């Protein structure tokens, strides 16, 4: 089967890797429109990526790219490889074949003497700085209060001063509407509140890319709205690039610039949400949407 998809056209790569060097240190990269890297240039590229678990091929020779600043939603039946894509980007998994680039740098490989070799820990850590992730199960650190959950990585990884990190944490907690819970432990919060803290924690690292892995799937229905509102807010007010796996189709329709429909480890079709939800090309997409909407 051919590996190409129409995606690279949709996401409008401009072959300009420079623009992606957004900052992790400038004070306001995620809270206002200060990120200079948003001009639709290519930020993420999957090149012939294959991932297998045992004999099961989850991603099959996958090509796609995401432009900087875009909000991209991955939809498709379970087992179609959506979450695997996020986990590959977060370096929680390694591809069996193919390469992934983020901001023009190889994610799991590095170039040495003109040859592509598996990346060392140092290189991976450098590229990983640009990526943040919010998990289905929140994964807050239960031994730390809300404040330290958010400041731990900015202080120890980015080298921010404790005061600056705490000020930033307060801003972010305001943004997610949890300012009054700053001194609580995660176990004292509801699932929805924990997830909003997790969003703040990810944003505190000022990533260029935010990966959202079924972030409302573990929540009670009445808590979903609060989390989605926060994400809508972030999507609307920042230039952060979002890759989102969700079953919340109305949310996907609201925030997405582009929707990718996955099936069996490949992109079946992609396009703006009006197109995918309104007039999909493939019967398979229609079936899937019929089942979840």
């Amino acid at each position, binding site marked *: 089967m051919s590996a190409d998809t129409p995606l690279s056209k949709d996401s409008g790569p401009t072959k300009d890797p420079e623009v992606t060097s957004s900052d992790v240190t400038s004070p306001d990269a995620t809270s206002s429109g200060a990120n200079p890297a948003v001009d639709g240039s290519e930020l993420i590229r999957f090149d012939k990526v294959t991932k297998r678990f045992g004999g099961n091929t989850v991603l099959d020779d996958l090509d796609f790219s995401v432009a900087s600043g875009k909000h991209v939603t991955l939809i498709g039946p379970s087992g179609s490889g959506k979450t695997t894509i996020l986990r590959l980007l977060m370096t929680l998994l390694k591809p069996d074949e193919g390469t992934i680039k983020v901001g023009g740098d190889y994610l799991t490989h590095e170039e040495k003497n003109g040859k592509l070799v598996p990346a060392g820990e140092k290189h991976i850590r450098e590229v990983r700085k640009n990526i943040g992730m919010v*998990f289905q199960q929140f994964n807050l650190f239960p*031994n730390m209060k809300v404040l330290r959950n958010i400041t*731990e*990585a900015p202080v120890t*990884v980015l080298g921010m001063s404790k005061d600056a990190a705490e000020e930033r944490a307060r801003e972010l907690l305001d943004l997610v509407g949890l300012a009054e819970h700053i001194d609580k432990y995660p176990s004292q919060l509801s699932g929805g509140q924990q997830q909003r803290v997790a969003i703040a924690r*990810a944003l505190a*690292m000022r990533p260029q890319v935010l990966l959202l892995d079924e972030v409302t799937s573990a929540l009670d229905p009445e808590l979903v709205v609060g989390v989605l509102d926060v994400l809508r807010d972030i999507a609307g007010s920042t230039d952060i690039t979002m890759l989102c796996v969700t079953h919340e189709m109305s949310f996907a329709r609201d925030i997405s610039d582009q929707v990718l429909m996955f099936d069996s480890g490949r992109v079946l079709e992609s396009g703006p949400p009006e197109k995918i939800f309104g007039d999909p090309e493939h019967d398979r997409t229609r079936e899937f949407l019929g089942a979840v909407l």
Partner: protein
Amino acid sequence: MTWDWSAVGDFMPLFWDGLLVTLQALVLGSLLSFSLGLVWAFGLRSASKFVRWPVNIVTEFIRNTPLLVQLFFLFYVLPEWDITFSAMTTGVVAIGLHYSTYTMQVYRAGIEAVPVGQWEAATALNLPMTRTWTAVILPQAIRRVVPALGNYVISMLKDTPMLMAITVLDMLGEARLFAQQNFQFTEPLTVIGVAFVLISYPASLLMRALERRLVR
């Protein structure tokens, strides 16, 4: 059998000496077993089999031989190679070493019980490996294993009389000494029996309370 309160009074000065020795051996032995156990636990997680295998063999060997044999070995055999320690040091090392092979298992279980999502979150935040261990994994793992470690401390307390076999004058050592000198066995042995109960029963209640609080 007669009970002689004056014998109790005569024994008490020796008893306090013995209690001090017992508690010293217990505290030092515990600290050694806690730290060495963590070292073993890391050794078993090593990526290299040249670390894993030796650690595995050594700890299995220690765990499967009796403490008393180890005490005798360290105290009577090592000097043959000109390695000599005081009786007390030998006792602390033997108890600490022996129990480290148990605390190792406790740590291992505690580390494995930390959900994989915690590792993933640490990766997603780009925390360095050492920071992931010290700030995220170990605090959660150790919290879970405090009660289990405490139970081994109680076990250790009840094993300290074995130190008498290498001439350490712990509570039992003092009691035996007193008994042999005065031909009065009932009083000193009863006193130390009561002392063991008075220490270990409240300690076990404390561990149960900790377990309810910490293991959730």
